[in-house]
């Protein structure tokens, strides 16, 4: 466990270093004089002249050599100074906090919905098997082949354009959250319901499960007392693997639905070449990703203290 946590700490530092180095390279690779560009971003295109550019250059220390500039860039990051957005001029940290809460709602809604779909479906297919199982297998396979943004697009077409039940995009009310959450939840559930199915079948075929039924417990009792916890460990561990899908799904879904979260912010920043925001958003996602992975590790450890499944 300690070794694992140490590894996660290493990852955390690695993310900070990797992202800042890449964005630094990005900063350097942009054509033109950086001072003019930043000045244009701050004071508007018309107000840029040599004096304002020189002011910016002196203030940000842009005339240093590349190595010093890199050290400066990285130490800024370590002290929590992410700079200001080149587009809005606001501190990146403030913008990120704002975006983060929106991303969080979306991700939570998506995960909860996917679990609500996947767990009952997986257990039911394992219990009954037969044609029902084969049907769900086919459906899951087809669903899985749809990228998450295609699912989102189809959901928009069906529920927003044709039926007009929910708004197409935007945010503000609960009804705005419904479609993105459905798209995200369906994509996640397409994979996870088969994992639940496999694990449930394994548990149901195990000797201890058979014995519990033989001794006369009702189906529900067996499932509740002997199934759930044994099932939970691999399923929670799988949620850790699925985190990648979740983060990537959130990025795509936010862009599709104009949901003002970190992913949308990242895509927009890349489009607008707003480097401090790119760095901040990528960093935020990387850090969250590592932290969530750690949370999954700890959850697995608590569910199964034997620790055999860790690593």
């Amino acid at each position, binding site marked *: 466990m300690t070794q694992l946590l140490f*590894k996660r700490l*290493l*990852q*955390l530092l*690695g*993310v900070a270093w*990797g*992202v800042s180095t*890449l*964005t630094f*390279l*990005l900063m350097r*690779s942009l054509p033109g004089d950086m001072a003019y560009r930043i000045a244009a971003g701050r004071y508007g295109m018309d107000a840029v002249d040599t004096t304002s550019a020189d002011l910016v250059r002196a203030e940000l220390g842009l005339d240093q050599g590349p190595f010093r500039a890199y050290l400066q860039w990285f130490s800024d990051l370590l002290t929590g100074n992410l700079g200001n957005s080149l587009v809005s001029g606001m501190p990146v940290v403030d913008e990120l906090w704002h975006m983060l809460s929106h991303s969080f709602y979306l991700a939570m809604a998506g995960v909860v919905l996917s679990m609500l779909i996947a767990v009952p479906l997986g257990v039911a297919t394992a219990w009954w098997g037969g044609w029902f199982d084969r049907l769900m*297998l086919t459906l899951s*396979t*087809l669903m*899985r*082949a*749809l*990228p998450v*943004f*295609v699912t989102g*697009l*189809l959901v928009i*077409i069906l529920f927003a*354009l044709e039926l007009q039940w929910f708004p197409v995009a935007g945010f503000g009310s609960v009804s705005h959250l419904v479609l993105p959450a459905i798209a995200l939840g369906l994509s996640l559930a397409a994979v996870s319901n*088969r*994992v639940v199915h*496999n*694990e449930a079948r*394994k548990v149901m075929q195990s000797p201890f499960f058979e014995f519990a039924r033989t001794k006369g417990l009702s189906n529900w009792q067996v499932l509740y007392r002997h199934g759930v916890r044994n099932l939970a460990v691999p399923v929670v561990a799988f949620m850790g693997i699925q*985190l*990648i899908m979740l*983060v*990537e799904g959130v*990025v*795509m879904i936010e*862009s*599709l639905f104009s949901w003002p979260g970190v992913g949308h912010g*990242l*895509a927009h920043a*890349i*489009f607008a*070449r707003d480097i401090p925001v*790119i760095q901040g958003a*990528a960093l935020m*996602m*990387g850090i969250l*990703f*590592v932290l969530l992975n750690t949370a999954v590790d700890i959850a697995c450890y608590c569910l199964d203290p034997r620790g055999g499944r860790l690593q």
Partner: protein
Amino acid sequence: MRERTLMNARGLGLLLLTVLCVYSFGTSFLFAGDGNSQNLNHILSIPNAEFLLGTDHFGRNMWLRLADALQLSLFLALACVLTSVVTGVILGVLAATRGGWIDRLIDMLVTLIMALPGLVLVMIFASIAPGSLLVLYIAIALIQWVEYFRLTRAVIQRVDTSPAVESSRLMGFGLWYLFRRHYWPVLAPQLLTLAAFGAANAVLMMASLGFVYVGIQPPTAELGQMIVELFPYYQEAPWLLAQPLLALALLVLAFHLCGRRGADAPD
């Protein structure tokens, strides 16, 4: 029964993949014209004898455009898979057989790469050189070799302790012989599965980037970007939007079916 359904799934995947390949590569040989040339007299036309899949909002021939886009996706998938398999397997063999600091060094690198979600890394790379296919390919390969490396390392470490390998080694056979005779037969089927999913992922990554408009730049035909371009015309020409959607889904489905192992058996 299970064996047969597995064969069917794989067979179906291969069939789908072959059809898509024949369509996309055959089109460039058999059909004259250019997927990027505009014809504003024929915009949003429905499929007919001249334009087999209709034309888009600039009057570009969708049959040619879709073939171009599929070709690009297939090409990228192939390049990414080949590069990352070769890199991953070589480094995996090195790490498992040499051990020591090589192992630790590569393991640290892998930990670093896995700390960031793949799509985010690819997006940052894409922003360094917007619209560059080469950078996209490098970024995707950079992420994907990690999986082949982990698989190779795990498999070889397990096989390495078997009596067969021990005795081969005692008889003085070299690494190349061990690899060919002992490692590869165990490794190959699992690599194939991973490669199929890796190909699907590469296709998805490029389409995702195109979809958020930071990937391949217009006018090059690319599936994700075609979807965005055609979405505004959904009301007038829904069949146009359906084409890239269907092509992308079929391509990913084909790869997924090819990679099916033991009827969705657990690992």
